[in-house]
């Protein structure tokens, strides 16, 4: 066992222990880590946003690059997002705070327009294509059985989300079958996620035991 002498490792250890201490109870040490986390994360985000979006996409072409590289027309095109972005500042000026709606409208409208066909393509049409029963299922008994079960599962689970009728009679049977599938699906997700999170916890312990305490290799 040889304890690390690297100051940065110690910082990481202190922060790790600070967060874990919340499991015991809320305490000043955790509050310190929590507030530090909040501040650093926002600062990190601001830096990334500046260097990954604002500077290369707006500031550099608009103010830094000479006209020989970016034509006047193109420069003028950058004025639009600049103005829209500046509208966000109006939120802090009560008289013109409604100007905030302009950039929001732009972002929302764009998002909605892009979403509709994209979702239809990936989540509806392509998923439907994958759900159809095809003659290929006759190849083997197990393939056939699983395909039928999957198909029934999809149909019944969709019926569970049918809100326009009271679930009575046949619809009740179908939606109850649907719930069975949904619950098995959630159980599977749970089991799967337990595995992933455990891996992360183990990773933290490996850090503490190896990088800090030097207890393992």
């Amino acid at each position, binding site marked *: 066992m040889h304890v690390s002498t690297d100051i940065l490792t110690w910082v990481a250890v202190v922060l790790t222990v600070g967060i874990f201490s919340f499991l015991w109870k809320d305490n000043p040490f955790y509050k310190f880590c929590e507030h530090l986390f909040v501040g650093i994360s926002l600062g990190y985000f601001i830096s990334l946003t500046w260097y990954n979006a604002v500077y290369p996409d707006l500031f550099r072409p608009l103010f830094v690059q000479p006209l020989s590289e970016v034509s006047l027309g193109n420069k003028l095109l950058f004025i639009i997002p600049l103005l829209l972005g500046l509208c966000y500042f109006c939120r802090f000026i009560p008289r013109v705070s409604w100007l905030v709606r302009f950039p929001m409208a732009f972002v929302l409208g764009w998002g909605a327009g892009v979403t509709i066909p994209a979702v239809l393509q990936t989540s509806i049409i392509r998923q439907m294509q994958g759900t159809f029963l095809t003659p290929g299922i006759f190849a083997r008994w197990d393939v056939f059985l699983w395909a039928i079960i999957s198909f029934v599962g999809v149909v019944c689970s*969709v019926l569970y989300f049918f809100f326009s009728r009271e679930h009575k009679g046949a619809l009740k049977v179908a939606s109850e079958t649907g719930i069975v599938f949904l619950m098995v699906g959630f159980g599977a997700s749970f089991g799967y996620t337990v595995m992933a999170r455990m891996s992360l916890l183990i990773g933290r312990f490996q850090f503490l035991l190896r990088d800090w305490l030097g207890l393992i290799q």
Partner: protein
Amino acid sequence: MKRTIPLAIVLTMGITMMVQFFVPHPVSVGYYDLTTRWIRIVGAFALVLGTGSFIMFHSDKVRRRRQGWYYSIISLVALVVTTVIGLGWGIRPGSILQNVIYANFLVPLNASMFAILAFYMASAAYRAFRARTKEAALLLIAAFIVMLGMVPIGASIWGKLPELAEWVLSVPNMAAKRAIIFGVALGGIATSLKVILGIERGWLGGGKQ
């Protein structure tokens, strides 16, 4: 003016972006690239809203000496220091921001929060994972199968367990996920359509009509 122009912007952007999807012509591709870049820029400015609110919230707490106000100082100092380091020395690999702030502050904080989840899973498993109903029992059984099938110990209990776990994941689980996706997708499309047509106006803040 305060409502009509935003609604007009939403309508124009929504419709042009939908049309764009079906048109492979270079003009349409160029329009997509241009607007995507604008969105990135405008989206970046939105951080102003958050940062403004953040500074006001915490400085207000400090000024009025609210409970735990000294912690707010930590948040504010952390924000200023990180931003200065980030903007001043850049974000490239090897920079102070990446090598010190990211690797030794953000990563352990983040990973520890993530790892705490494992403990919460344990307590949730003990406290709330009850086979109260037959649905809950099903959830439990499926979770057990997958949890055991995923680790070596499962295979040593029963050789077929990994296979069974994979079956649960690929047959009933897949069916349930698909059903949810259909519903969620239709909901998303309907909402987007309502936003474009100006029927959904919650985002304007204040009054649905």
